[in-house]
């Protein structure tokens, strides 16, 4: 048998030949040092090519693809909390605005000013009692909440903590689970 061509060795390495031809080439390679040398060099070069790392696309690519499809990535816990609180915040705002309008206009269309005052007074008392109980409790567990804006600061800090835990612990865990 003559020496093998590079193409024949390539096809042998790729396993792309008929079984009988594979056997013939295998037999030749066992006895021909020159062809075996070529085979080893080709295999070395092939390995080097197969080990080439893929080129990296920009980091925001996946987000861009998903947003062009109108698909949200996993919603964060912080966003979920905000989203769930939104109706409550909106309701409070609407009620507040209505109350303010009624109070400013002295309107007789809605409840009478006296009735409004009674209702607002009752709600206000309830909110005030609830808030002061909560703030007293928070002051006992945290010294930060004792200042003028302490409660707000504490709530913001708690929210930031939840957002950080969500961003750096829960989301990576969820992503790892998916991929």
């Amino acid at each position: 048998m003559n020496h093998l061509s590079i193409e024949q060795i390539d096809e042998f390495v790729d396993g792309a030949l008929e079984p009988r031809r594979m056997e013939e080439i295998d037999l030749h390679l066992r006895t021909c040092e020159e062809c075996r040398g070529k085979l080893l060099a080709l295999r070395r070069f092939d390995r080097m090519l197969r080990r080439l790392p893929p080129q990296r696309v920009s980091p925001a690519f996946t987000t861009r693809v998903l947003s062009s499809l109108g698909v949200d990535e996993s919603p964060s816990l912080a966003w979920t909390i905000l989203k769930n609180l939104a109706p409550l915040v909106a309701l409070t705002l609407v009620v507040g605005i209505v109350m303010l309008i009624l109070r400013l206009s002295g309107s007789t269309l809605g409840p009478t000013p006296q009735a409004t005052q009674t209702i607002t007074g009752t709600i206000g008392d309830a909110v005030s009692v609830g808030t002061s109980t909560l703030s007293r409790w928070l002051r006992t567990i945290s010294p930060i909440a004792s200042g003028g804006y302490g409660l707000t600061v504490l709530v913001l800090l708690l929210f930031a903590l939840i957002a950080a835990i969500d961003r750096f612990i829960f989301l990576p865990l969820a992503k790892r689970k998916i991929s």
Partner: protein
Amino acid sequence: MSLSDSELIERIRAGGKRFYGALVDRHRDRGFTLAVRMLHNREDAEEALQDAFVRAYRSLEKFEGASKFGTWFYRILYNVCLTKIAGREHDPEEVEYEDDRPSEIPSMSDSDAREMTEFLYSIIDALPAKYRTVLSLFYLQELSYDEIVEVTQRPLGTVKVQLARARRLLRERWNSSEGGAASAR
């Protein structure tokens, strides 16, 4: 334990659209490597890749699972890149180079792994487009002959001939460069 491509696809079909992000993450870099080889331009490659992922998502219902998701996706990407190339040919200023134009190969000054990678890519990129593509599909996307046939829709004989020529050219250029000398040491 990570989910396989077919498991991810099942979940996407069941309404878990956000699982598509994991599929994109898994195939984007290899897809980008193919698109860069075909288009020779990173921005165009990224645009083509995004287009291909969007098309793949919209046709996911048609994916029957007869082949791997990767092969099916590369076929979409390959066609998007071909369309882009055809579009360039209508606008001669956008064509970067001719198919068989001889290109200069930069010499390698260091045998450090990162430079070796860049050097190998530079030799591949200096090859004619059809050879770059088939080399990329074979070595970088790790597709078999049959899968390359499926992606490119070319006959097996053509794929074999192109791959053989691409390899020969690549090796010749590698051996004639300092890289070949360095690897022989």
